[in-house]
């Protein structure tokens, strides 16, 4: 793509291709390239070939899961009811998607307009993370076609999962509304954008409520299994707080990680505003994340002290717990502290990545690795379970990239008014030229 731009290809960043001529939808989809150029750049990207191989193996297996049943793809058993799809997919992706409500809150509620260039990335990251968490859920449910049942057919309002189901679905629609502004800009439907703009604050505040509750609720799900989750990862009073608080740095660090990957692979899509502000914003996000991590570490320690679980540190589980805390919390905190002070961007981005890994590790530990710690055997997921998880995650990456390439996330859509002066002057120029030729 960089080469194409260097060779004079234009990118879509406004309604108009040239004065007086709008981009067609097809041209927008092809990023303003010709189909040959587009396919050419896609083929040159080695990552696409890797995705191709993964999809060639993974998608038939996903289809097979719905034909041959769960036992064909998972080792989920009567003792280990949940496997990788939930442990990695649902419990891992939801906390990393808290960026949507956090950046929404910072920009729209707290009036932190300095964070605005990255707000849309935060919102999109939230939407996609939730959406694919639901995709993972669909792979895992025994009868996924019954997913709307808790909304319409049969209610179990005392269950934590009931709350999760309602909140995730309402929050998904909130996020679709929040992200739709960029879609409306891109498609050229300003009325829709204005309508959403008008209800932004309502959407944002609803987002905070829904996020707080269901991030916590995912943790509270494990309070149903006090004897099964290892005591170090379990706390009746703090479980929901652990999940909620850890999702805060998780979401922020996920945004840092995504923006880092994007700046390495698709910086052509950045506009000047994003490029110039990225480092400054990354530092702000990292500051927020460190505060989140500090809070998280504190309540983790308090919960251990609260139930007096120190003796578990002497066991193998305790060492594993310390490994998790080192990777996901303590090392990143130390690195953040050093790097923010010295504005060392590489270290900040690396520690953000560590936090993301730490979140995945924590959720996997809670849901799978230390789950059923009293049972003599551990569940090792089926290889097809790994393949499906990887495939769905790659689909997530491809969709993410597809949207980032097109919608005004990293750049600002240039509106008619902004374009107009240039257009007028050009027309005037051509008129003048015509006048000059005429006599």
């Amino acid at each position, binding site marked *: 793509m960089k080469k194409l731009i260097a060779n004079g290809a234009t990118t879509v960043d406004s309604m108009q291709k040239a004065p007086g001529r709008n981009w067609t939808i097809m041209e927008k989809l092809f990023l303003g390239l010709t189909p040959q150029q587009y396919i050419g750049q896609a083929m040159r990207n080695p990552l696409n070939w890797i995705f191709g191989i993964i999809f060639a193996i993974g998608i038939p297996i996903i289809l097979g899961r719905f034909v041959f*049943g*769960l*036992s064909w793809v998972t080792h*989920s058993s*009567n*003792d280990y*009811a*949940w496997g990788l799809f939930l442990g990695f997919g649902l419990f891992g992706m939801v906390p990393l998607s808290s960026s949507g409500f956090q950046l929404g809150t910072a920009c*729209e*509620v*707290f*009036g932190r307009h300095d964070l605005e260039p990255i707000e849309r990335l935060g919102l999109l990251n939230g939407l996609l993370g939730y959406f694919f968490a639901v995709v993972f859920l669909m792979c895992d*449910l*025994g*009868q*996924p076609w*019954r*997913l709307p*049942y*808790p909304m319409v*057919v*049969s*209610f*179990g*309002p*005392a*269950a*934590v*999962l*009931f*709350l999760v*189901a*309602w*909140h995730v679905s*309402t929050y998904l629609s*909130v996020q679709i*509304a929040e992200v739709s502004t960029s879609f409306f800009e891109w498609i050229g439907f300003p009325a829709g954008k204005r309508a*959403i*703009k*008008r*209800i932004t*604050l*309502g959407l*944002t*505040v*609803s987002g905070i*409520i829904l996020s*707080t*509750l269901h991030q916590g*609720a995912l943790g*509270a799900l494990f*309070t*149903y*299994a*006090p*004897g099964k989750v290892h005591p170090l990862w379990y706390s*009746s009073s703090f*479980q*929901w707080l652990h999940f909620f608080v850890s999702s805060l740095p998780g979401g922020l660090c996920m945004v840092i990680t995504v923006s880092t990957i994007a700046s390495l692979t698709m910086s052509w899509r950045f506009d000047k505003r994003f490029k110039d502000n990225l480092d400054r914003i990354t530092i702000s996000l990292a500051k927020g994340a460190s505060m989140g991590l500090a809070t998280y570490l504190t309540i983790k320690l308090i919960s251990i002290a609260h139930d007096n679980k120190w003796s578990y540190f002497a066991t193998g589980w305790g060492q594993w717990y310390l490994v998790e805390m080192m990777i996901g919390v303590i090392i990143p905190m130390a690195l953040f502290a050093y790097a923010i002070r010295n504005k060392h961007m590489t270290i900040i981005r690396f520690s953000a990545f560590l936090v993301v890994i730490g979140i995945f590790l924590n959720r996997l530990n809670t849901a799978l690795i230390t789950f059923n710690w*009293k049972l003599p055997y551990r569940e090792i997921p089926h290889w097809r379970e790994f393949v499906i998880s990887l495939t769905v995650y790659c689909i997530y990456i491809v969709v993410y990239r597809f949207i980032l390439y097109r919608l005004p996330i990293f750049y600002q859509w240039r509106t008619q008014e902004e374009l107009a002066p240039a257009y007028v002057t050009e027309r005037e120029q051509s008129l003048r030229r015509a006048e000059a030729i005429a006599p």
Partner: protein
Amino acid sequence: MKRRDFLKGCLISGAAASLGAASKSWAVGSFEGYPDAMGVLVDTTRCIGCRSCEAACNKEQKLPEPDVPFDDQSVFEHKRRPSEMAYTVVNRYEEADSKNPPFRKMQCNHCNEPACLTSCFVNAYTKTKEGAVIYNGKVCVGCRTCMVACPFNMPGYSYSSAFNPLIKKCILCYDTRLKFGKPPACVEICPQEALTFGLRTDLIKLANERIRETPDRYVDHIYGEKEVGGTSWLYLSKSSFEQIGFDTTLGNEPIISNVKEFLGMVPMVLTIWPALFSGIHLLATRNKDHGDDHHNHSEQEDGKK
């Protein structure tokens, strides 16, 4: 319009969640089972491991033919658990110095406050007044939270079914027997009278009598009388309950008590957050001109409250 719809949805779900929380907190600690709930007392000292209860259950519940016939004792080499193939299994627990190793029959214990029921988001489970915990496969989505929640690890799931996988567990022969006042199939067939069917309250008295009459034969505890809020199946044992595979660390609180702290917090968040955050918004954007129309929104938002 969109926002109104959304807020409406939010209110409904919030109200539902808070209602749920409230009704649960009344129930916790006070509900000790229906007065006429039936139960089964298992005297593990009488069990000889003949597996006829397994066979009777298989026949009554029309379960598939087992891989190993019911008169084969080799199954005791490994510990088994209930599954989609068998709603009840008997395990043998070795003791070094004993010629008569203890056996223990296991199946769904039919809790007074079942964790499966309280964790189910489509209300697929019902605790009937006869004491059985029954399951409605027609609404089950297959999230398997009940399996995670069950402190006894009893529900099985038919993972092999692609189009209609369901939870498979003992329902105390509710449809075919209990509803009509008859004892479950396993109880009726037991040749050793190790299983006694009756009112749960009577069974507790009976168990206490047995312990009092022959204190050498039993440890002084009825497993299931108080565990996780009490269960319809009650157990007597000669050796300690850990030795015959029971989890003795579960405590007497029903599982839902652990979830209460979260459920109790839900209405608070629903109430305080909107006021708090729109308040902060007003303060944060006060006297600032951002060149956008945020102020109008906050006024609207305030008018709503």
